């Protein structure tokens, strides 16, 4: 799942949440959940129009991407309504959604062919093109268009990795935060057939081929060797403080 310049996105948010979509590159609207329809209809927040529901927004704008800034208790309802409204890509930033609710929304997504990123994701960045979520996508020292795909559970560590790539002159093709929750959806995010390889400074990096020009698209072949570099933080933490360390037998 790659955010494109042409993506049309909605932001279902708490009334005080700020919009963090790139308004120059993507069309954005709010679905004003948590307020009565009469209060939200025809209004705008951060110069972005508010619709009464995601379904209404999809009907009026033809949008296909939604991002959720919804508290855990009501996230399931919001997600399912976005999925049923025909949203194709749903970015769920909320942390601590009950596992049962996460399973329910994954099931709803599977029924409707919706792709979910998250929950508890920092979002997606296609440097120089599009951005959904809470990453510092517009900070030039962190993100710059390049050829290394970055997949991370953590927003902060993802930021650090992208920063290091930019500082070393490489940049990123795309960043995907797969979410830190137990039932997040990494398989769909990372198993995309739109993976390709590229030579860059003598090393091979996994990259997402979202920069194809529409005429030519390389598909990942089985014999395409890829270099995947992994970084796991926490080597200096005390063994007793490590999360989910199995007890030695």
């Amino acid at each position: 799942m790659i955010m494109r310049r042409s993506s049309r996105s909605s932001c279902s948010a708490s009334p005080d949440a700020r919009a963090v979509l790139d308004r120059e590159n993507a069309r954005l609207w709010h679905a004003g959940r948590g307020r009565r329809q009469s209060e939200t209809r025809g209004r705008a927040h951060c110069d972005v129009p508010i619709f009464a529901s995601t379904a209404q927004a999809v009907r009026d704008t033809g949008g296909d991407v939604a991002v959720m800034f919804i508290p855990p208790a009501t996230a399931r309802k919001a997600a399912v309504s976005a999925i049923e409204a025909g949203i194709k890509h749903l970015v769920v930033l909320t942390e601590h959604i009950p596992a049962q609710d996460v399973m329910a929304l994954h099931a709803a997504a599977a029924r409707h062919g919706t792709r979910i990123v998250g929950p508890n994701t920092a979002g997606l960045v296609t440097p120089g093109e599009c951005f959904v979520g809470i990453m510092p996508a517009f900070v030039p020292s962190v993100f710059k268009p390049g050829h290394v795909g970055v997949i991370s559970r953590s927003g902060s560590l993802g930021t650090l990795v992208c920063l290091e790539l930019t500082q070393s002159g490489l940049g990123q093709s795309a960043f995907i935060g797969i979410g830190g929750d137990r039932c997040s959806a990494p398989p769909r995010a990372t198993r995309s057939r739109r993976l390709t390889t590229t030579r860059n400074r003598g090393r091979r990096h996994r990259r997402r081929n979202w920069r194809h020009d529409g005429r030519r698209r390389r598909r990942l072949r089985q014999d395409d060797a890829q270099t995947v570099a992994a970084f796991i933080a926490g080597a200096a933490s005390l063994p007793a403080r490590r999360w989910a360390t199995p007890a030695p037998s």
Partner: protein
Amino acid sequence: MTTMDVIRHFGGRPANFLEIGGEAYTKSAAALDLVLSNPGVRSLIINFCGAFARTDVMAEGVVKAWQELKPAIPVFFSIHGTGEDEAIALVRARLGIEPYDLMEDAIQAAVRAAQ
């Protein structure tokens, strides 16, 4: 977490680890107070990699607390992410400290200062 790994990589030993990301990012003054209450701290590394957390807000808290508490230990900054320009300008103007461009350099300097 990575900060601790890099401290160890350069031969240092973390006295404290305190994360002020997420919901706590407006509380860097309280965080600084807490870390400095440990007499074992000989130098301080402040490493911000702000995504959701705004580094300018965190830097403001740190600068305020630093001027209030006037600690006798050296401090080293590495600031990147949301609001970094404002944060770096703030640290430069109010503390007269130049934040490091590379996290590794800041940590190496902090480790050297502690030895």
